């Protein structure tokens, strides 16, 4: 099922089956090149699969953007321990809702992606870790898994070869932190989602202390296309250092929010104004988040000439992240945005390390007070200072995720903080943010 109209500007590779009748069924899948890549991969050597993925320039779609081919090559294939495939379907980064549509519309694509990764890593079991809120996706996936077993794409001696693979779904129960790969593994093992000390990385010591390939849903979903049509074809869709397409979750003050598959390197301006149909009410752009709430926030000026790819974002000192785009119009209160983002991270901090545990809580309290009009001039400096004291010093990336947007907002929109000083009510509070649909 689709929740928004597709855009003619999309390049639909991973989403090619979206909108087809019964798109989640194995019949639809098989009728549209489904499991062809698996047949091809079964003929390939693991090194050849990895090489093809390297050629595709596929980079991790969960947010970190690490080369997928490289990541797969780190798994010690010859280790006597069992190897595992783990799918990160926790999709916990705010503003991100793409894995949900990928699984809902095309679960077999994900299963085929897992199988390809399993062939590359000599793995024989895989777990799909799905956030607890996505309960209906577990049912969809369990159905798809059962279909795949029936058709011989899962289980023993897949397609008559010596290759065997079992797939399982596993539900989370509400924790942002479990989207971090090592915390996800802890959670998968039935523990609190506290990240692990790394190294060793999951490729070597992962699920159940065994070598593990751990990628985001979208990353696995790209694998069938890469193997089927070749890594070069996938790479050619994107920019030189990042191949393929990216599912982008367009949200906030745009006329046509939705999940769109856009080639890497797509213009931000085009994305807002053509794909997204422009800003609601003809308002002006004030702020832009490119890839989930943990990215530094950009001003309208910084969005000029910007494209949606890893390197372009890095040049503007932000990140492509998970593909969760937020468009904020001129009436948005940036103090409120900073506060809401911090409230989230304070809620989700696992409590393991001092700077994140204490820093997010402190910042949340100070931002709430500040937005309520009880701020003092010193608080503005303090907010930036505390965020910087967290930055780069926490146990896992959650601290940075909380610090980066905060630092960017307090530095770029200092005037808005000034405007909240000394008991003045929030200047934006009277502007209704509610858009009547």
């Amino acid at each position: 099922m689709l929740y928004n109209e597709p855009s003619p500007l999309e390049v639909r590779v991973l989403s090619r089956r979206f909108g087809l009748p019964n798109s989640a069924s194995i019949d639809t899948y098989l009728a549209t090149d489904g499991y062809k890549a698996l047949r091809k991969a079964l003929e390939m050597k693991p090194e050849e699969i990895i090489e093809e993925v390297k050629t595709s320039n596929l980079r991790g779609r969960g947010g970190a953007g690490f080369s997928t081919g490289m990541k797969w090559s780190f798994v010690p294939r010859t280790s006597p321990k069992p190897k595992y495939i783990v799918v990160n379907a926790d999709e916990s980064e705010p503003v991100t809702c793409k894995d949900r549509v990928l699984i809902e519309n095309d679960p077999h694509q994900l299963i085929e992606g897992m199988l390809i990764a399993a062939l590359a890593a000599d793995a024989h079991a895989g777990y799909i870790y799905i956030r607890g809120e996505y309960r209906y996706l577990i049912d969809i996936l369990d159905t798809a898994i059962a279909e795949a077993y029936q058709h011989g794409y899962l289980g023993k001696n897949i397609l008559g070869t010596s290759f065997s693979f079992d797939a399982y779904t596993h539900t989370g129960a509400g924790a942002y932190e479990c989207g971090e790969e090592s915390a996800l593994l802890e959670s998968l093992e039935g523990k609190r989602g506290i990240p692990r000390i790394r190294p060793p990385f999951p490729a070597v010591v992962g699920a159940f202390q065994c070598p593990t390939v751990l990628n985001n849903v979208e990353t696995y979903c790209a694998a069938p296309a890469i193997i089927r049509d070749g890594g070069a074809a996938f790479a050619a869709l994107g920019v030189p250092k990042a191949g393929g397409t990216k599912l982008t979750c367009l949200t906030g003050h745009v006329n046509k929010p939705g999940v769109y598959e856009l080639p890497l390197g797509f213009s931000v301006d085009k994305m807002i104004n053509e794909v997204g149909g422009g800003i609601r009410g003809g308002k002006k752009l004030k702020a832009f988040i490119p890839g989930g709430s943990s990215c530094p926030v950009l001003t309208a000026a910084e969005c000029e000439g910007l494209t949606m790819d890893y390197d372009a974002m890095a040049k503007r000192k932000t990140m492509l992240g998970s593909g969760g785009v937020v468009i904020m119009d001129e009436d948005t209160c940036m103090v409120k945005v900073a506060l809401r983002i911090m409230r989230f991270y304070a809620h989700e901090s696992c409590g393991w390390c001092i700077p994140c545990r204490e820093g997010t809580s402190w910042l949340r309290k100070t931002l709430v007070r500040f937005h309520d009009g009880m701020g003092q001039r010193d608080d503005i400096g303090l907010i930036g200072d505390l965020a910087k004291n967290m930055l780069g010093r926490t146990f896992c990336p959650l601290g940075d995720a909380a610090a980066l947007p905060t630092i960017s907002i307090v530095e770029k929109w200092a005037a808005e903080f000034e405007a909240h000083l000394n008991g003045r009510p929030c200047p934006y509070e009277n502007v209704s943010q509610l858009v009547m649909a």
Partner: protein
Amino acid sequence: MADLVKLTINDRHLEVPAGTLVIEAAKRNGIEIPSFCYYEGLALQAACRMCLVEVEKAPKLMVACTLPVAEGMVVRTETPTVQQARKSMLEFLLSNHPLDCPVCDKGGECELQDMVFRYGAGESRFTEQKVHEDEKQWSPVVFFDMPRCILCFRCVRICGEGMGVNALGVVNRGVLSEIAPNKGDHLECDECGMCIDICPVGALTSGTYRYKTRPWEMEHVGTICTHCSNGCKTTLGVRNDKIIRGNNRDRSGINGEFLCIKGRYAFDFSDHPDRLQTPLVRTGGKLQPASWSQALEVVAKNFQDVKQRGGRFGVIGSNHTTNEENYYLQKFARQVLMTNNIDHHRTGDVLTLLDALSGRNEALATTQDLYQSKAILVVAAELALEHPFLSFQIRANYRHHQAHVYAVTSQPVREDKTATVIVRAAPGAELSAVESLREKLKAEPELIILYGDAIKGDGVRKLVAFGTSLGIPVKYVPLVDYSNSRGAVDMGLMPELLPGYQPSQAFGLTWADMLASEDLGALWVIGANPLKNAELRARNAFMVVQEMFLTDTAQIADVVLPAASAYEKSGTVTNVCGEVQRLKRAIQTMGAKPDLEIIGLIAKEMDAAAVVGPWTSDSVFEEIRKNVRGYDVPVAMIATGGAAQTMPVNGRIAVESRTDLIRSTHDNLFTSGTLGRYSKMLNSVLERRLNYH
């Protein structure tokens, strides 16, 4: 030896073994990198972020506690960035930490307080509301004050990894995270108090110590625990001749930081109101207070009388008194009273082991060996309850060196958790069950066998034969009960053995024989309670008891002499592994005297002082070193608080072990014979445990 890696820390060129963590490399070279969560020997956490350092070529500050050294690494620990980072961590920590140092037990020895003094952040920019929770009592021993907790997880790890108990966990998340006990609102655990001592702040406080004093008001005296046979160092905090607390935070003994509930809290018998503080002499059928000189005169006169009329003496010594006292006592008995009728309560078969080994001294394991041996076999023993330090060592060995542990017992034991193979055998059948492990044990490079009192006599010989047949180096630990059970055997508190396992010319009466003898003229009991569940046949025998309390035995004595406890005297004791350590006097109890002095004074009163020699512990120990085989240990080693292993035999022992007299009391963590009955803390823990069950 591991390969050495060259690196520089603060421009100092260092060479350390590969794999060393930067924080350790720095510490070993006198460079302090502060930390809360890092604790040597426990799992790494990287949680407190206090140990952030600059490493050349690293994009951001690195955590020194999880970073292994690398060739050519350049580390800086005192740059402005590092200092700023530390200060900011402390600022974060203090944001929710109450500033109640003036009423906090930890004040003065608080790691957080020290760090704030050293690294700044004394002024707070935090003006929001602090997270607060009321203090909770988790057990008679453990109190938890959540706001003070900095979540370093040391307590959770020492309880789980160190003790193998796992009674503490973490609940909630984020700023509301807190440490929680295993039974919802209370603890069910060993009550060892390790969590309290390892806590860097005042979050976990002790039921016995809280609000009593300040650390700088105490004298800290490191001595040896007087309870079980493991020989743990306990550092007693003393103020005004009163022991306020016990711990081993300086990790000075063989036990490192380990202490069980008894070592840490059960010193309180020493000022129990029932403590004897004046001699008692039976007059008119009743024990009446008397002066020391009167009491000694009565003893000397009666001993002389019995001796002159050729009556029989019986002397029963103690498992708790020092080697010097035991040696001196047997010398007194044999050379002044001219009797071999001397015995003590035997709790394990040391004798047969030493005979079976016949001089293979290298086959006696030390407590350190338990931490290092590649394989350990526990036979018929409940170590975690009866020998908690030995159990701790084995767990540490398993954790740090992946030692193979084998448990052959009739009941589930804590060693099961770390065991490679668990064998359950019916009580009494443990020894034959060991045979099933033969092939596995043969494949081990080395082995230590610990055995309980169920294995004795022929059992011990069979066990040694089994060990020898494995064809690998095997060491043994014969488990015994009390703080100087081993020393009592070594010093010849036996009718058949002189000090150093030399057979006596004529075997005297055993303990049981003395009680059964019809014509016993005098019975002299020192630090023992033989009449607890027994009767003295010779009702008219003159009976002298040296004791701390009016025990069942003391109650029917003719003279009771108030004795000092182990915490009130000097001397040496020998632990279960044969390691000699020195007691250091912590307090004095008015009226009581050390047994050595009492025996000396009796000798003097009997004009026999010249025979037994001076009654100072140093001079007696010198005599022991000369005369008792295996005790010629380096004095400097024990004088400086160390432990020296004794090598008691070098050949066969021409005496059969009286296995019928060997019986362990199997005191558990919360009992300790007479001493335990007079420890309020142990009793309150027992009472509370009963209430919960």
